[in-house]
């Protein structure tokens, strides 16, 4: 039942002080609306409705969530507590600076810490998510070339394994996307890269470790080639969790990075956001950063608006401050020691789980994994039984775990992309491997069971084709 179906005219979930008038004075009839077709409910009904909805969700705090590329790590509860302090939550973004020194200090320290962690020179916290971080970065690259009167650089090179936001961003920034093939080891094919680099190259966008969970060990060479061709190197920080304290993108030749605070820095994913995608740049790109950023002088902390070459604002105010605050709390909780342990345990967990699964699933690249790995459903199973990766993913749901990311990256057939994260225990990994084993056995023994899964979830397999063919996108009274 939707909240609209639960509505009864005249119910109220909130009462307010009495108004003196019954309509806004001075507005003409023609300026006023007639009706507002919202539901009407009491507070208990609203609570029961949304509590009921919540109980239909899987979540990190409910069970294992190895959704590759998304870094579904535990979200510490202290972060939530701190974010709700009125000294942060009840700040207007345009209050006088002298009344928000604590907030500005926090942002300033976070800028500095993210610069240190990524090995970059300057950071802006403004982008609202990873994709907006990319957009910021690519627009800065565009502005950089333009400022140098280097006007023919219309192409952005992107590996075929890349996340969809990378090509979408490059295109949104007005670039042509040139796909670069991967080599047999799952890395960027250096020959292919060389062939595509040239005077039109504005940038190369990479994530490292790649979406295959593999460290791009040619990275220094890639950076050299890119720079030689006059392009800049963009770092998609979605996979930063793997290398915290071990290696810094800035030290490996990247010119711009974004980081996803909602991945590496434990801010909650919220059912799909809010995220936060700060960008870091090397000094040569600093003039193009979006403003305001936070600066410090003897009188305290200040908002510094972008200079004349700045690409301008990416969104209103200073970004998702509530997420900055959580990420800051997390960084302070862990410190340099803890962040390094995060990377170590994330990589250990991925390799251990890969080890537990490698005899049952096809491993396309037999290399050391970083924080995640990609495997395929064995061809033999698919051919013999007709069971597909999607079916396996759905069947896993019946066992109380979330499924891995599936069918991504696109270059691996029947891909399952598995990212356990460092916050999962050895037992959980072993239990998950056992579940996968059970499902694979079942796929052979009783393929229908798997093909018609899930069976025990709040709803069963949904008709997505019908949803797209006959879009029912909002409530309409019958």
């Amino acid at each position, binding site marked *: 039942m939707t909240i609209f179906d639960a509505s009864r005219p005249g119910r109220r979930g909130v009462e307010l002080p009495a108004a003196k008038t019954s309509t806004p004075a001075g507005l003409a009839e023609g300026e006023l609306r007639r009706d507002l077709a919202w539901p009407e409910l009491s507070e208990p009904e609203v609570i029961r409705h*949304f509590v009921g*909805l919540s109980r239909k969700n899987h979540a990190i705090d409910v069970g294992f969530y190895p959704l590759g590329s998304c870094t579904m790590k535990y979200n510490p509860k202290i972060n939530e507590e701190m974010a709700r302090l009125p000294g942060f939550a009840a700040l207007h973004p345009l209050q006088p600076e002298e009344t928000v020194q604590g907030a500005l200090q926090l942002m300033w320290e976070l800028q500095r810490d993210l610069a240190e962690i990524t090995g970059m020179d300057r950071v802006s916290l403004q982008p609202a998510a990873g994709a907006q971080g990319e957009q910021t970065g690519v627009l800065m690259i565009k502005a950089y070339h333009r400022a140098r009167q280097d006007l023919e650089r219309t192409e952005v090179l992107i590996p075929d394994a890349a996340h969809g936001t990378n090509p979408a961003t490059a295109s949104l920034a007005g670039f042509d996307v040139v796909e670069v093939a991967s080599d047999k080891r799952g890395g960027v094919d250096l020959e292919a890269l060389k062939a595509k680099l040239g005077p039109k190259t504005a940038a190369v966008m990479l994530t490292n470790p790649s979406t295959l969970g593999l460290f791009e060990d040619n990275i220094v060479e890639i950076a050299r080639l890119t720079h030689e061709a006059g392009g800049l190197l963009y770092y998609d920080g979605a996979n930063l969790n793997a290398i915290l304290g071990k290696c810094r993108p800035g030290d490996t030749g990247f010119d711009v990075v974004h980081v996803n605070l909602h991945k590496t820095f434990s801010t909650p994913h919220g059912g799909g956001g809010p995220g936060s995608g700060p960008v870091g740049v090397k000094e040569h790109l600093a003039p193009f950063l979006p403003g305001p950023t936070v600066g410090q002088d003897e009188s305290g902390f200040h908002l510094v608006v972008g200079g004349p070459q700045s690409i301008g604002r990416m969104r209103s105010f200073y970004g998702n401050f509530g997420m900055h605050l959580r990420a800051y709390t997390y960084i302070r909780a862990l410190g340099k020691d803890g962040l390094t*342990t995060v990377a170590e345990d994330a990589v250990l967990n991925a390799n251990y789980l890969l080890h537990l699964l490698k005899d049952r699933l096809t491993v396309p690249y037999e290399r050391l994994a970083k924080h995640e790995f990609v495997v395929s459903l064995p061809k033999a199973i698919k051919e013999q039984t007709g069971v597909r990766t999607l079916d396996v993913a759905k069947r896993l749901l019946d066992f109380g775990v979330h499924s891995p990311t599936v069918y991504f990256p696109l270059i691996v057939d029947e891909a399952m992309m598995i990212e356990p994260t460092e916050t999962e225990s050895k037992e959980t990994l072993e239990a998950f491997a056992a579940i996968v084993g059970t499902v694979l056995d079942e796929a052979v023994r009783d393929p229908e069971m798997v093909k018609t899964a899930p069976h025990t979830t709040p709803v069963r397999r949904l008709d997505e084709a019908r949803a797209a063919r006959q879009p029912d996108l909002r409530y309409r009274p019958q």
Partner: protein
Amino acid sequence: MRFTPHTAAERAAMLDALGFSEVMDLFADLPAEVRLGRDLNLPLGMPELELDRHVRSLADKNRHLGQMPSFLGAGAYDRFIPAAVSEILRRTEFYTSYTPYQPEVSQGTLQAIWEFQSLVAALYEMDVAQASLYDGATAAAEAMMVAVAETGRQGVVVARSVDPQVRSVIRTYAQGRSLQITELALDEDRCDLLELDRLLTDQVAVLIVQQPSFLGAIEPVAEMVESAHRVGALAVVIADPIAHAWLKPPGAYGADLAVGEGQGLGVAPSFGGPYVGLMAARQGLVRRLPGRIVGRTVDVDEKPGFVLTLQTREQHIRRQRATSNICTNQGLIALAATVYMSLVGPEGLRQVALLSHEGAEDLKGRLLAIPGVTALGPAKTFYEFAIRLPKDAREVNRRLLADGFIGGYALAADYPELGAGSWLLAVTEKRTKDEIAAFAKAVADAL
């Protein structure tokens, strides 16, 4: 470590299973020259007891809206948030889940978003709405991109009375596709309609206006939309959700897209974010919309359920040909707004808006009664309004802060043409009569 379960013994056992002898073996694939041969230059980790103390000490360096009556708006508002909203946001099943890629175990998130879409569409009286954008400013920019794609034109006319931050974001987004942006000037405190007719040519993809405007003015939006349509341009209305409890909604006068900032709908000001961008459109534009969209369907047992739909618009399918690059949006904040809208219902929203309006009219009357204070122009206003002080507004704000008030927004930095005394004030349902009266008196004293 408290967030990671492994003990030293477990780590050793796992490494052993992998045939490794030490943790660094896991990083053997990092070429020597890229390894960070030192510790990060960060402090050591803090136990929660110390961390709590430290972060609170930063919070305590701020003075917050609970400590000083505020008349500052300009895009973020100090509104009342019922406790039930945060009760739902604290449900871990909502905040520790992610984009509902596996709908069978994400019906909570999916249905809530579908309800959000329904509420936003109803608010704006548009055919459809999508699942949220980063904020109101990016929503306006994304709407512009929709219009550009739909019309194949490159011209953009943005009213100067649109929030300057929103105009700035629009300009940033326009850089990518080299769009031509023209600003529609002010006539006193509203859009200049004669100028509008001059700017609207057949090169124009879209007209972007804000209702009420950044200056608080109720704009002649219906006429403006009609003018845009006359040249084949689309009309995007940035529509404040609270004022639209009463104002005629964009759908009622033919806007093609309605967008807005949802912060007023149960979201804490939180120093500027996270907020939530609203976007609704007429049916014909649905396949051009950016970001997520949830649709209702049925499962194999014909039981109703919800899924992400029309995904062929999206980056993970369409890649460089996607309608936008959005992946993570503002899910949890959209949920907050959904709970808020459900709690207040139509009558509650009207009352929130009416109380704000009454307070604003009261304050406006009091301020305009102070000698030397004048109106910017003849526009009607709703809960936010601009006036002209006989003194620099920044100076007045400083005096008011000393008196324990957060004053209005000094407009001159964005609108030099309005003069140093131009000042924008917002009144919400949280401001009491006494606070309004005391504030008006403090302003009089400060002049």
